[in-house]
């Protein structure tokens, strides 16, 4: 046998707990547009909520800047989603049906309505025309903003991917917090310091909620939390933690200075974007590992068997 080179791989006897280690599930076919959309959608939604709150609190400067941020997010979002489709020219098929069992269907409708309302609100704000209709558009956009920022948690959780589905309680809260941190951070960059007080508090509350939700999620995920400790998702998760702490400290400590506010705001935005990437990548790792789905289903089966009907 010496000197002979095998022309084919060595045939394997497979281990009994999976089929040649092949995934039980298919990994997502979603492209990088999706985690960026999780970011821009959250930005648009929370910025609209912040703008409406500023409108009610008569903070005109913060209100106007926040509407601009919301419009930017609401413009980028559909562009990202459409280019992610396998058949982008068929994007309007998203509005063929209204399906509460499909978070993507509900999200498409929320995004379409929120984007239209934000466009109308900004037009009225800038031109000063149709103030009544403009106010109605502001209320609509401001109220649709929060659901736009949180439905994406259901979008990911409503899948067979273990690390997403088992985080179904925490993901919407993590995305709500991240959205507030992002919108607050954007407002800190765009707004003079004297008007940015609410944005400062919004960003810090958001970062705290995001962190708390992610920590709770990891605790409840049990063995599945390993998806956030290694690999690409792990690197994103660690970077997000550093950015959150640095950004939070900068905003809290130097948020009343223009440079501190802008730098801290930018770091909080980056932290939230990085967190979305961590969640996105964790889903790939979880879907590709056959043992995660198999072990989880066995555990659930045992729990069910142990619970009397």
């Amino acid at each position, binding site marked *: 046998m010496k000197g002979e080179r095998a022309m084919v791989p060595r*045939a394997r006897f497979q281990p009994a707990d999976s089929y040649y280690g092949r995934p039980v*599930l298919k990994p997502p076919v979603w492209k990088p547009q999706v985690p960026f959309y999780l970011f821009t959608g959250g930005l648009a939604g929370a910025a609209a909520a912040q703008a409406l709150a500023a409108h009610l609190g008569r903070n005109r400067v913060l209100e106007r800047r926040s509407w601009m941020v919301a419009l930017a997010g609401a413009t980028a979002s559909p562009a990202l989603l459409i280019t992610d489709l*396998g058949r982008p020219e068929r994007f309007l098929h998203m509005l063929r*049906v209204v399906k509460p069992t499909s978070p993507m269907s509900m999200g498409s409708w929320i995004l379409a309505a929120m984007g239209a309302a934000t466009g109308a609100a900004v037009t009225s704000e800038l031109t000063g025309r149709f103030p009544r209709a403009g106010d109605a558009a502001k209320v609509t956009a401001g109220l649709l903003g929060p659901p736009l*920022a949180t439905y994406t*948690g259901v979008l990911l959780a409503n899948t067979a991917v273990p690390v997403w589905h088992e985080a179904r309680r925490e993901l919407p809260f993590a995305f709500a917090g991240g959205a507030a941190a992002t919108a607050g951070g954007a407002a800190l960059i765009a707004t003079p310091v004297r008007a940015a007080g609410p944005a400062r508090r919004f960003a810090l*509350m958001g970062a705290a909620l995001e962190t708390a939700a992610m920590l709770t999620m990891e605790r409840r995920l049990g063995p599945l939390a390993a998806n956030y400790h290694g690999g690409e998702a792990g690197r994103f998760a660690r970077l997000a933690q550093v950015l959150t702490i640095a950004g939070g400290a900068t905003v809290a400590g130097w948020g009343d200075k223009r440079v501190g506010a802008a730098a801290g705001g930018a770091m909080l935005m980056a932290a939230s974007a990085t967190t979305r990437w961590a969640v996105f990548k964790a889903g790939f790792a979880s879907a590709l590992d056959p043992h995660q789905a198999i072990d989880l289903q066995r555990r659930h089966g045992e729990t069910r068997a142990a619970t009397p009907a």
Partner: protein
Amino acid sequence: MKTADGRPQAAGGRRQAADGHASYGEEAPPRKGFFTDTSICIGCKACEVACKEWNDVPDEPRGFTGESYDNSGALGANRWRHVAFIEQRVPVGAEHGAPDSLVQEAARLALTEEAGMDVAADGDLRWLMSSDVCKHCTHAACLDVCPTGALFRTEFGTVVVQEDVCNGCGYCVVACPFGVLDQRRGDGRVWKCTLCYDRLKDDMQPACAQACPTKSIQFGDLDELRERAADRLEILHRRGTTSARLYGDDPDDGVGGCGAFFLLLDEPQVYGLPPDPVVTTRDLGSMWRSAGLAAGALGAMAVAAVLGARR
């Protein structure tokens, strides 16, 4: 929401056993399905070939995998039937719970000497073969999450993608607990087994079932197939093949039972099948509640941030 036996019901109270099938009313033919009896599969792959030929499924050469006779890997956009090959070493006679007869023993020894291999030394080689396919679930996650309505329930109770509607969003790909659906590269849409919807409408059986030379793939009315499977299981158990089990036949399982179910000779995960899959939309209510609460928290934070300035 709970069903009579206390198990949580799939999302949407209106969805009962046939799950959309019933909406066709009196005109609906009985629900159709596959019973794949893997105990008589010989791994000829005629089903894979017949499926590709009839449905015009593109080829996707993968080269030599080194994984027994399986060089096609798994179900996907370009593989709607997939034959799995599992090679196992099991103790001699273990499968039947008793030693082989003297005749069998002699035949094995003769074979061993002739081949120059000592097969018996570390147990027999057992070869499991199984033709996998879309399960056409009663509670189908792919159908639930499809945002365009491209996926629909046919009058035969099967689940089919409409290729002129699908826009390739990819949601069904991650929703399917069996990893069946996938996006076709260069095409962008998702593709999967249609249970030969076109053939069913002309009273023909699906191509794979017709091509199967051993009747390992049986097509018919689901109710009748379930009876046939129960009978077959009883025969195998009586003969001592205690490892035989049905997979996907139980209407009370996490997907409400499969339209395409199986008789397996080992644990499902050995065949690459999830042991106890649950339709993701069963937890939809709690997910939307969580999103609603989170949205409320986000709105409250925005208001609180502004009010904080007043103090």
